[in-house]
């Protein structure tokens, strides 16, 4: 349940972990996630008067950070296409150990990845996810199914059933 934040500072401290994780899950890069989460909060501050009054400000934040992360990935892909020798997409050279879920999500195409994260981690409905990503609900359903299938492949379906 989202409690209405009394101040931006309180909202920031309470919401940072989940916003950071969403950014990390979609972007697949810890350093980028930190920056993207900061940018999302800067945008929240920019519109704080209205953001603080909406019913689920955390959900709004998640939509913002998801879109930022998707844009970041697009830019990364473009940069990679222009300089193919760099390669190693989505990976930070400074990163030692990547969490299992992040490693698995890296193998899922960006649009499917965003849908999976928003639907099953951020807990948005099909309609909310569609609005957040600018897609039709039917497309979200389709991407969601494809993303889950791909993720199961990566993680191992037996483990999922046992989970």
């Amino acid at each position: 349940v989202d409690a209405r934040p009394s101040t931006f500072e309180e909202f920031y401290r309470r919401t940072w972990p989940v916003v950071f994780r969403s950014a990390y899950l979609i972007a697949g890069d810890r350093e980028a996630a930190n920056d993207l989460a900061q940018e999302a909060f800067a945008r929240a501050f920019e519109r704080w008067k209205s953001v603080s009054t909406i019913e689920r400000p955390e959900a709004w934040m998640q939509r913002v950070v998801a879109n930022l992360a998707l844009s970041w990935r697009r830019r990364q892909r473009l940069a990679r296409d222009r300089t193919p020798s760099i390669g190693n997409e989505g990976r930070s050279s400074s990163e030692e150990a990547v969490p299992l879920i992040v490693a698995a999500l890296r193998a899922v195409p960006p649009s499917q990845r965003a849908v999976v994260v928003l639907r099953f981690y951020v807990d948005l409905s099909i309609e909310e996810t569609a609005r957040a990503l600018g897609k039709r609900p039917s497309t979200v359903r389709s991407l969601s199914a494809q993303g889950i299938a791909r993720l199961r492949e990566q993680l191992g379906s037996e483990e999922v059933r046992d989970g």
Partner: protein
Amino acid sequence: MADHADFEHWLRLLADAIEPDPPPNVRRVIRRGRTRIVIRLTTVALAVMLVAGGLGWGAFALAGLHHGEPVQTGLGGGTIIFSAYPPSLTPAPTPVPDYVPPSNLYAWVPDTGRIVRLTNGHDTADIGPVVSPDGRRVAFERLQYPGYLVHVIDVGGSDDHPVTTCNLSECARDPSWFPESDRLVIWRTGSIWAVNADRGGAKMLLHFGPGGIGHVALSPDGKLIAFHRNISSSDVVVMSSDGTHQRLLTSCPVSESLCADLGGIDEFRWSPDSTTLLLQAGRNLWRIGADGRDRQRLTSCPPAATPGTCQAENASFSPDGKWIVYDNARQSITFMQSDGSDSRTVVVAPTCPSPARTSPVCWVSDPVWSPDGAFIAFVVTDRVSTRIEVVDRGGHEVAMSPPVTGAGGLTWQELRPGD
């Protein structure tokens, strides 16, 4: 469906197991948010101006800059005057050795948010503003290639005139005001002068011959002149303001403990009561009595510290002389009691996150006290812009200027525009 729910549950467990980075200081995020607000408002204003057909000088109105308007007293009990690039010089020019980009003087009253442009040169660099003790005029250095001149203006920006003329490369530098606000001490190549702040009238106080002087400052009571003599060694000398009674305070061949780790004096400031000099010598700050006694090192940067990690600089006394503020290698702002005790770091430089690794370094620099000693203003540069920020003694931000690219040389004083 159960399988689906299991998967959702399992995915959430895995995601929740991710250890997030600790949240950065909320002020950094707020600063970023404010930058977005300014950019949005600026974009809207620009669109309005374009529609109205207002370009050129109208661009200054965009940032709230209006030449010649009176300056009001505000938060902290005064106005911040500083040097910055003109709005037309955006983005900031790439640094080139021996090239000083054009700059003008501006005045900012922190709690009104308004910035007033004081000088108008298009191809000159106006730097180092110093407000007269009566708060009515500002002296500054104007670099108009090939040389520096000292100019004086009213605090409203009018009556811009030079107090010296010459054709050499260092015609006049380092102006400091006599208490009566009618004359200035300056130095020019090889000599120290007292000049009239109005047009005409100068008296040479000391002559060395070519070279030899690095920095000159008149004490606030107008009785002593300290100067950096750099002929055979790096020395700080004090003399009476009529040019007599020279006294060597420090000398810096390496045998001198004050400069054994560094190689010379970089700059110095007088305490408000004119009894003490605050020296920046190499990496550290020192204080020394005007009589040469009570020498004390105030900071403790090791001589072999990695460059850019420990370097006390841009120091100044609080108006009551009890506190000193400085920046450490542009990475933090620290203040302490004037004997070096009770040191408190109140601001650290913003970090430039990963996408901006190749952008210019982010820093904080040039701290100055407010006239009432309650606040500290400094220049902050992040990956988006350069601004002037005001914090209280607890480091809490209380005001932030609009973007002021190339800002530096801050001075914060009570102004009294002419009648």
